[in-house]
């Protein structure tokens, strides 16, 4: 059957509303995060949910899938009222949510995770062979060549996300909700995911899709619902909307300038130089200079060794060779403490795993990296509170309740807090790894301007990003890595996507080394 024919067959199915939320309100303690939100999910349709960080998207979909209970409002399944007391009830009705945060048991294998709680049995025993075959089939469908016997903790984040998706597919969803599935995926993986989403849509599955990437919404969604500050703003067909329109609906104002202005020739003396740095099996002979007041981008495909190089510079990874100079003088950096003393700070891309203490509130998180500033013998709580006050102001952190755990924060607010935490050490050089993963467009712009401010004040920034517009919009120069080597440093007119790709794939520039894991 052709695509068109499938569409036609499902035309009657299509109009059918499967799951709807009516006038949903939700409060956490005294903070209300959803106000009278209604939404309809129709069979055979991809419905996108848009909104700034903290707008309440995740909260809404958790209510739709039984993870949270609404404070008021109702759910309708096929026009009949239902109550999802927990996620199991929702799943038994075919409502499956892929969470924004990965929800895998790290110690278990891929196949064990996929069938967790739904193990296939033969008699009293687990039928491991069948489960392995099934798992393999699901992964093949996603063109993901991960061995089902691998433990989750040994997988990259993007592979983990693919496992999450495989798990959801195995549950035979009728209503599939994906909360920012692509935040950690590579371009190719996104394409594969979209193929699967289209396949399910054509089978009549109702799909709700959350993403901050407006291109994706344009590409995959039929209708879009926009939330702002917990309120329903609009629901309309995607066809009539441009990206700018969506951004305006989300933020409630025009985003005039996404990136800060960059005055040419503002870079000053050399602040940091790295010479012939190597990390066994990951980085080979990397050398570069970073000037005062400049943003030096680092581009490259996943596994090119960018994060390894940065972690080696700040002493989190062992160097097998190489020297580092600050302002022309050699320095020894053996651990993060040394790096901090040299005025170098590192913003991790894994804000939940290595950035923030999710079970604590903002204050201890903010001051953890710069603790000695708040007292060497006794911590000065007043000073901490004052610093928190200032950080909330400077970074526009919006937390409903200052005492709530940062694990409950929206991604954007976590990212701003992480930025604030790193800036507490008052660094001269900031290494930022993926600053806007899972961040809404308004906050992105805020973070970009913040980076611009830093360089205007004479600080230097190293930027690692997989988002090309970000790389091009922020960087003065772009170093490209491939297979552990810096294959070129692009300046001026060479700073374009084409050149970056040529260097990243090793067509241009120095030959890379073969990298063994």
């Amino acid at each position: 059957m052709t695509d068109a024919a499938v569409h036609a067959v499902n035309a009657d199915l299509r109009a059918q509303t499967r799951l709807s939320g009516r006038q949903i309100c939700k409060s956490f303690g005294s903070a209300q995060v959803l106000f009278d939100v209604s939404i309809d999910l129709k069979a055979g349709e991809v419905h996108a949910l848009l909104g700034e960080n903290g707008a309440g998207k995740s909260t809404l979909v958790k209510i739709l899938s039984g993870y949270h209970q609404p404070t008021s409002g109702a759910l309708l399944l096929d026009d009949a009222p239902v109550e999802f007391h927990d996620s199991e009830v929702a799943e038994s009705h075919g409502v499956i949510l892929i969470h924004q945060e990965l929800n895998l048991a790290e110690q278990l294998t891929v196949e064990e995770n996929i069938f967790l709680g739904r193990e296939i049995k033969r008699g009293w025993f687990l039928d491991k062979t069948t489960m392995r075959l099934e798992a393999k089939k699901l992964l093949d469908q996603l063109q993901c060549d991960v061995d089902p016997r691998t433990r989750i903790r040994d997988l990259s984040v993007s592979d983990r996300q693919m496992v999450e998706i495989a798990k959801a597919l195995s549950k035979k969803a009728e209503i599939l909700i994906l909360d920012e599935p692509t935040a950690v995926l590579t371009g190719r993986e996104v394409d594969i995911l979209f193929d699967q989403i289209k396949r399910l849509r054509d089978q009549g599955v109702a799909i709700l899709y959350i993403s901050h990437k407006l291109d994706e919404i344009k590409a995959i969604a039929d209708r879009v619902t926009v939330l702002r500050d917990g309120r329903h703003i609009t629901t309309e067909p995607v066809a009539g909307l441009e990206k700018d329109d969506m951004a305006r609906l989300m933020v409630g104002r025009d985003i005039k300038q996404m990136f800060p202005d960059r005055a040419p020739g503002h870079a000053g003396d050399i602040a940091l130089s790295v010479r012939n740095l190597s990390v066994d099996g990951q980085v080979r002979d990397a050398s570069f200079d970073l000037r005062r007041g400049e943003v030096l981008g680092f581009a490259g495909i996943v596994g090119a060794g960018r994060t390894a190089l940065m972690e080696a510079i700040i002493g989190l990874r062992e160097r097998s060779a190489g020297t580092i100079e600050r302002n022309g003088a050699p320095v020894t950096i053996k651990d993060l403490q040394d790096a901090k003393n040299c005025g170098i700070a590192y913003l991790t891309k894994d804000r939940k795993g290595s950035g923030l203490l999710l079970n604590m509130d903002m204050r201890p998180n903010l001051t953890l990296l710069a603790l000695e500033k708040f007292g060497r013998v006794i911590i000065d709580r007043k000073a901490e509170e004052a610093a928190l006050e200032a950080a909330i102001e400077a970074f526009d952190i919006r937390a409903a309740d200052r005492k709530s755990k940062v694990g409950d924060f929206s991604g954007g607010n976590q990212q701003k807090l992480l930025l604030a935490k790193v800036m507490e050490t008052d660094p001269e050089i900031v290494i930022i790894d993926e600053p806007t993963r899972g961040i809404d467009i308004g906050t992105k712009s805020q973070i970009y301007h913040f980076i611009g401010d830093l360089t205007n004040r004479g600080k230097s920034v190293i930027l690692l990003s997989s988002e090309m517009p970000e790389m091009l919009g922020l960087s003065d120069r772009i170093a490209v890595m491939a297979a552990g080597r810096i294959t070129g440093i692009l300046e001026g007119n060479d700073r374009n996507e084409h050149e970056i790709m040529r260097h990243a794939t090793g067509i241009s520039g120095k030959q890379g080394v073969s990298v063994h894991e």
Partner: protein
Amino acid sequence: MNSLERTEASSSSRFQIDFKALGPFLALVALFVLGAAINDAFLSGGNLANIFTRAAFIGIIAVGATFVITAGGIDLSVGSMAAFISGAMIVVMNTLVATLGAGIETVLIGVLLSVVLGVAAGAVNGLVSTKGKIEAFIVTLGTMGIYRSLVTYMADGGTLSLDFEMRGVYRPVYYGDVLGIPVPVIVFFAVAVAGYVLLNMTPFGRKCFAIGSNEQVARYSAIHVDRVKTLTYVIQGLCVSLATIIYVPRLGSASSSTGVLWELEAIAAVIIGGTMLKGGYGRIWGTVVGAIMLTTIGNILNLTDAISNYLNGAVQGLIIIVAVFLQRGDWRRKKSK
């Protein structure tokens, strides 16, 4: 803490927090009411002094355990460590009586030895588990066996007894009092206050919380994780040594059965007090209350015929399980709200 902010917090969550913090205290009050109802002698000054003096041993050790557990570790060796240290103290002091005589100097040397051994034993636990990257459970299970067999070896399978004359000199450390308050209680209180300040008000304590919550985040926050963790074991060793210094004059002897199951009582006191066994959250005052509770249960059983004294362990075990259950119930409510 900022009082204004407290009032701003939602009333429902404030109630929960208060309840959680007060839980162990309320349970202790209930136990005291029960004790008083069962036997008039319970509230007599002598009996109360007895309870607090006995609670001091476990309590001092448990304060150390609070650090270890808050930072995500565990120390099973404390009971054996106490036995080993008391054995070593007795042997050395008995030997010194011949040359130095039974005087204060001999006691001081014994005390010094105890501190050195406690710190060293703690450092061994800490360094082996951090540098050797072996789980603390396994390391301290190993040292638990080692310390215990060392004392058995020193005593040649029997009992080491402190020189009779020495006992007279050393006695006030346990039986003495200042303004009517028994010395062990004063030491206990001092250790608790110091522990509270260290855990809640200093960078070191903050780092313990951070490591127990997420080691990776702690590492990325420029915290020397291994160093801090090792220090928690050293603090634990120091606390064991202090408890032993008080303990030796009471019994005047050490054998292979000294300090058996103290590790469990210490961990129980910590858990009853609301510290999370998986780390990341610790409460010294809770631990203090937990230790007093455990001793009070034994004391009440002594004063009544309703339950055999031999069932002391069973009742304690029950209380521990109930305490943890109540705590978990609390987490549950929080999650599903």
